[in-house]
């Protein structure tokens, strides 16, 4: 019975790191400023009642990251590498979205069309990355370097060089609040995406296949799994995630700026996957972990902002956190630590024996 209980627990052991990170940040903030997490109900410019406060802005601000982290987790699990072109791809998707909207009047129908179009385009680019990785067997980070290099220029090109705006209450509704709804819409979109991906895992065998391919590709093939296909699919799903993230980012500002849209988000997305306790070398994964990781990163960022760290400097601090995490997680360090731990324990045991 005891072993059974232990197993139930070990199922969730992967989530310890992200949860612990969040808890640490929360405690730190509570000490620093007890009112950090207070939530207020205010009335915004549009006259509707909305929730505000640091907690809401963490949840809201992390939306794009959380969505990208979901896709990134899949790619990481299946290919054992990461996609560094997600920011560029989101910019491309955002540009397509804007392009469609600017073709005519902005109505719910055109918005739906725009979302479908940008998802389709992002899937095509995802498939391009996926082909380089699965068919040409190029390391994911190098393969996605191509799109990383030219993606933002492609985005620029789509809209003919300007940074066009898309002003409409409908767009604002996607980017901030739906009238009458106190919760920011991006948070709702994350929930929607989470449900969609949850359903995908429920009604297909994607989860099992992805893990199998990531853990042991040869065995996967011998069990009849199409390893190339699975890798391709993981990249295409990430493409859709990029498209959704791009739409949110565009809607927040009601304009597309190909240079700054979700800049450097690829690093955060990879970091979210790592903090979520997923091995960057692929295999077993937990999307929940990555999403929690995304919120932990955003919490860290907001905390740094609250401490009056300029937004441009945040990178440096984040880099330190990343290095700390990977150093602690590195097998060599783990092995050394466990050796030390063993020595301590055996020392204790000897002492006990001596007594």
């Amino acid at each position, binding site marked *: 019975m005891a*072993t059974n209980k232990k*197993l139930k627990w070990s199922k969730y052991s992967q989530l310890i790191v992200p949860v612990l990170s969040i808890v640490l940040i929360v405690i730190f903030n509570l000490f620093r400023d007890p009112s950090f997490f207070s939530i207020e109900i205010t009335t915004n410019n549009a006259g509707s009642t909305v929730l505000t406060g640091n907690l809401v802005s963490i949840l809201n601000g992390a939306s794009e990251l959380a969505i990208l982290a979901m896709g990134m987790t899949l790619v990481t699990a299946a290919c054992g590498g990461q996609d560094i072109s997600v920011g560029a791809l989101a910019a491309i998707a955002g540009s397509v979205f804007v392009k469609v909207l600017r073709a005519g009047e902005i109505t719910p129908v055109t918005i739906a069309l725009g979302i479908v179009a940008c998802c389709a385009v992002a899937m095509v680019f995802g498939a391009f990355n996926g082909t380089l990785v699965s068919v040409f067997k190029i390391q994911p980070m190098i393969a996605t370097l191509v799109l990383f290099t030219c993606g933002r220029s492609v985005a620029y090109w789509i809209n003919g060089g300007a940074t066009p705006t898309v002003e409409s209450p409908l767009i604002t509704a996607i980017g901030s609040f739906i009238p009458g709804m106190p919760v920011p819409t991006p948070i709702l979109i994350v929930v929607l995406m989470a449900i969609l991906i949850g359903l995908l895992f429920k009604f*297909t*065998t994607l989860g*099992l296949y992805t*893990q199998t391919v990531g*853990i*042991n590709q040869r065995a996967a093939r*011998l069990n009849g799994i199409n390893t190339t296909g699975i890798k391709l699919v993981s990249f295409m799903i990430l493409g859709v995630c990029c498209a959704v993230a791009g739409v949110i980012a565009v809607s927040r500002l009601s304009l597309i700026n190909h240079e700054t849209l979700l800049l450097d988000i690829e690093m955060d997305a990879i970091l979210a996957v790592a903090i979520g306790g997923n091995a960057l070398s692929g295999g*077993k994964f937990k999307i929940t972990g990555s999403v929690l990781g995304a919120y932990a990163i955003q919490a860290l960022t907001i905390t740094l902002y609250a401490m009056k760290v300029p937004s441009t400097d945040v990178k440096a601090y984040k880099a330190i956190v990343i290095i700390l995490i990977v150093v602690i997680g590195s097998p060599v360090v783990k092995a050394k630590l466990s050796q030390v731990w063993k020595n301590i324990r055996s020392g204790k045991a000897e002492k006990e024996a001596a007594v």
Partner: protein
Amino acid sequence: MQNDVVLSMRGIGKVFPGVRALHNVDFTLRKGEIHALMGENGAGKSTLIKVLTGVHIKDAGHIHLDGAGEVTIRSPQEAQALGISTVYQEITLCPNLTVAENMYIGRNKDLIVKWKDMEKKADAILQNLGIPARAKQQLGSCSLAVQQMVAIARAVDMECKVLILDEPTSSLDDKEVAMLFSLMRDLKNRGVGIIFVTHFLEQVYEVSDRITVLRNGELVGEYEVEHLPQVELVAKMMGKELEGLSDLVRDDNAAEDTSTPVYEAEGLSSAKGVNPFEFAIRKGEVNGFTGLLGSGRSESVRAIFGADRVTGGKVKMDGRQVKIAKPKDAMKHGIGYLPEDRKDDGIIADLSVRDNIILALQVMKGFFKPISQAEAEKFADEYIKALDIKTASSETPIKSLSGGNQQKVILARWLLTHPQYLILDEPTRGIDVGTKTEIQRLVRKLAEEGMSVTFISSEIEEMLRTCSRLIVMRDRHIVGELKGTELTQEHVMRTIAGGGD
């Protein structure tokens, strides 16, 4: 002790967690001899070699080296320094460097390397040994045989006294083997002691002076080649004295079965170098592919399952022609395959026992029809009980199970798909005796229930006990098919050993 002994190992023992890999093994190598080290899977040859090259540290025994007295070898570097060089089956050189660089890199400490001098020296050595390679050539552009020879040349130039060739011929063709052998003889005349590990009997008899046979981690004996006929060598490796063979012929349904075969292959060949072969299996039959390791027995069944790229041949199932190009095709036609290499080809290490069990069935059901949690749990529990898999729960990652139980999980994976034809490649390798007999019994039971099974094992006794027909392979060819009264150890061994006395 004779004067010309270069290396003597006495009472070597090595224990791995749960396995006694070597026990009280002696080995003696003389100056200027080629000494073959023989044994089947798990006999302990590779462990012995690894102890000698410092990859593993011995637990017991002594190693004496001519000129150095008793030595302890803790790393490959130390072994090299003592004059023990190894050339492995997989080339351990850098294909992107030139031949000369491969011969000299990592050996001196100068900042600037005088490549001109080295190339000259390398060319001289290559010419001296008659190796058809040039110093300036990129290693990758040489054939595998030449690459191996370059590795040998490096060893020779480092003045090795003991040269270990670990299955050097497994990926060479006849001409290349001949080249390698003439080099080996040349070195032998120069007084180098060569340890030759191989599975090819003919090759042993062609070049070796002496043979040491290991079995189950113990020394069987050391023999002069002239005094050990091929058949006896096979007997020693397989673990039966020729005289004392008790024939274990089971009374099989001797009547010729004329029904349509479940599976039938004609001229099947694969990219992994199996020569085209014919093969058929009928309903409820257990047959076996036998032969020594490297004879092509595994490659043949991989070709049947479509695991390697199939290059030619026709396949019929139940009399209808079908195309099996990849594992999924085979699975669709009701073929299951338990691979030889459990760790690399079989288990999905980090996944739970449950996921490992349902994997194949899931793939057959299709991408959009996931097996529900409850169903998966039911299947897993059913097979954990049926095959008596010892695991804490179905949630336990398979990697934390013992080898035998891992194997049972893979077996469960295929049984769950209810195949009409099941291929088991070395299902009993590296697992405890109890599980072995369980698996053997299971195979018989499955056949009685109407399943066709192909069974491969290194242990001939096991094959005789389980199979009603044996296909014997040697050097990637089928050399015989034995059934009924022919199924005796002696007969099998003679067929494996081939024409030679």
